[in-house]
């Protein structure tokens, strides 16, 4: 076996292997023996046909394929040993058949990432103001008011936002009844909201473009439920009104499509939400341990400030790592990024599973190909990989280690987070299967804290988390859930750590006003 070694950019090596003909022949004969065991060749018992008979029966191509399947792993292992290289991931090695006679194979082997940290002793990442916007505080109070609004019956005309209770009877032009319902409830919404809803539905529609063409003429015709709601606007309790509603061609009930139905609407009640006044009573009702509006504002402001501080810390640590990456030598193969990308894509598939949607169906719905998904996640994965490599190198260079007590605590945290009710935290099997993850968690937290402290000269909030005793005293300190998102992919396994899961998983929707209000209070 003769090997030519060629270094490629981006931590890859090309190995061209010339295989001896004798070696190939021997493997072909071995493959023929195996194939012959499943062949019925007239005149021979199974597995007894001579090589040339089997070759004639199955074809040289198939025998060669089988022979290569047997040879390649050993050839590759030998080539890697002879070339004295350490592959990043054996599964990511690309192999090609360059020629059959003489047999020549090519392997492109991704190598382990290579990182040399730059000198970051003079690095400075200034802090930015993490001020709480007073408008956010007021918005939270407004949300609390909406959550605790009281509903009162109204004697006047129905307005947008009111809940109208009504009976309705629908007649066709020939006098037949098509719809008769009582005690229906409808919260009246504005025309803009109806349009926004229609737009959102169009976006969700599989064949949105085709549908738009189909409904092109009806764009100005409000949807039937909207026509009824518009008619309800301004009606008084016990008032009766008749309104003609035109059903579009594409209406799902074909009996009504393209027909006009005359609806008789009878309003039986109108309820309106009345927002409570913001005063000390309101505060006492909403938050048990507070008794004044100012105290409520302070609480909301403090909580927002904590979150802002957490975000600022995350921003700073990420900026530190990115700045170190810029001044360091970081080389990695594409396969390392691709591993992270596919980890994220698999995660999407896993998240879709409970809804009975396969990844293929998801791609059909969103009109994306696998390549599109790969492109979409590539940049993010690459950034995560670089950050993880920098942290990992820091851990190695500065010999960051975990103590047994820290590992025990991390194991307990993991046990709590993953809800392993069926197995105890002291169970040897549990410890064995989660030990590596716990160590990873401890050392990466310690490394992040150290980096933060070295560069900023300020104590890291993570430090409190690491210190067992301090952690129990400071329950309100920022939790690791607010930690910067950093992918920690061990080189040797080519698998991302659980922190990548946090990155890939949908983050908490900070924009949801109700959730915000609850958290802020």
């Amino acid at each position: 076996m003769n090997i030519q070694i060629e270094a490629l950019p981006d931590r890859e090596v090309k190995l061209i292997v010339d295989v001896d003909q004798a070696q190939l022949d021997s493997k072909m004969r071995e493959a023929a023996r195996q194939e012959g065991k499943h062949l019925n060749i007239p005149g021979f018992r199974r597995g007894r046909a001579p090589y040339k008979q089997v070759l004639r029966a199955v074809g040289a191509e198939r025998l060669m394929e089988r022979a290569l399947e047997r040879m390649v792993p050993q050839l590759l292992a030998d080539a890697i040993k002879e070339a004295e290289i350490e592959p990043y991931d054996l599964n990511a090695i690309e192999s090609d058949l360059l020629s059959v006679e003489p047999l020549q194979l090519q392997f492109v082997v991704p190598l382990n990432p290579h990182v040399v940290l730059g000198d970051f002793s003079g690095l400075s990442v200034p802090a930015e103001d993490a001020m709480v916007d007073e408008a956010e505080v007021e918005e939270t109070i407004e949300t609390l008011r909406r959550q605790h609004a009281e509903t009162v019956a109204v004697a006047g005309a129905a307005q947008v936002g009111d809940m109208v209770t009504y009976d309705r009877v629908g007649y066709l032009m020939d006098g037949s009844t098509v719809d008769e319902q009582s005690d229906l409830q409808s919260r009246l919404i504005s025309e803009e909201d109806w349009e926004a809803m229609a737009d959102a539905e169009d976006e969700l529609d599989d064949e949105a473009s085709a549908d738009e063409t189909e409904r092109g003429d009806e764009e100005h015709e409000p949807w039937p439920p909207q026509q009824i709601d518009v008619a309800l606007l301004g009606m008084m309790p016990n008032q009766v009104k008749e309104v003609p509603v035109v059903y579009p061609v594409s209406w799902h009930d074909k009996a009504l499509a393209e027909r006009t139905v005359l609806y008789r609407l009878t309003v039986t009640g109108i309820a309106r939400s009345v927002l409570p006044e913001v005063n000390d009573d309101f505060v006492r009702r909403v938050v048990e341990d507070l008794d004044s509006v100012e105290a409520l504002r302070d609480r909301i402001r403090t909580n927002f400030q904590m979150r802002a501080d957490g975000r600022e810390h995350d921003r700073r640590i990420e900026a530190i790592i990115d700045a170190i990456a810029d001044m360091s030598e970081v080389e990695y193969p594409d396969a390392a990024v691709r591993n992270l990308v596919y980890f994220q894509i698999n995660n999407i598939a896993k998240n879709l599973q409970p809804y009975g949607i396969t990844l293929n169906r998801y791609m059909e719905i969103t009109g994306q190909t696998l390549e599109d998904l790969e492109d979409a996640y590539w940049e993010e994965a690459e950034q995560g990989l670089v950050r993880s490599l920098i942290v990992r190198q820091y851990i190695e260079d500065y010999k960051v280690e975990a103590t047994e007590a820290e590992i025990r605590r991390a194991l307990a945290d993991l046990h709590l987070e993953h809800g392993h009710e069926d197995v105890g935290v002291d169970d040897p099997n549990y410890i064995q299967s989660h030990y590596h993850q716990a160590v990873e968690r401890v050392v990466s937290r310690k490394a992040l804290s150290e980096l933060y402290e070295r560069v900023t000269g300020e104590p890291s909030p993570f430090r409190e988390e690491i210190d067992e005793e301090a952690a129990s005293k400071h329950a309100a300190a920022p939790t690791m859930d607010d930690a910067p998102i950093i992918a920690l992919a061990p080189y040797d396994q080519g698998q991302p750590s659980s922190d990548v899961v946090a990155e890939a998983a949908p983050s908490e929707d900070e924009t949801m006003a109700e959730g915000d209000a609850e958290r802020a209070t």
Partner: protein
Amino acid sequence: MNNYQVILRPVVTEKSMDQAEWDNQYTFEVALRANKRQIKEAVEALFDVEVTNVRTMVMKGKTRRWGRNFYSKSDWKKAVVTLAEGDSIVEFEGV
């Protein structure tokens, strides 16, 4: 009959391959009307070898059924040719 009308095809089975390998005996399907002398001459001429012995046998055609009708396949003649020591039929090994 020319040589190609005498020797029809090699018989390639596990047994015939073993005989060729171990006993230097090669098996052919030959014309039903061919006699041992013709077979010997044909093999010697076609493969450039020396034949020391020829054994022949008529193989009875097997009975087959097609629906409710039975018919019989044709009888055929098999010849086992022993070659002189040192001779071999390379073409036979290639089948």
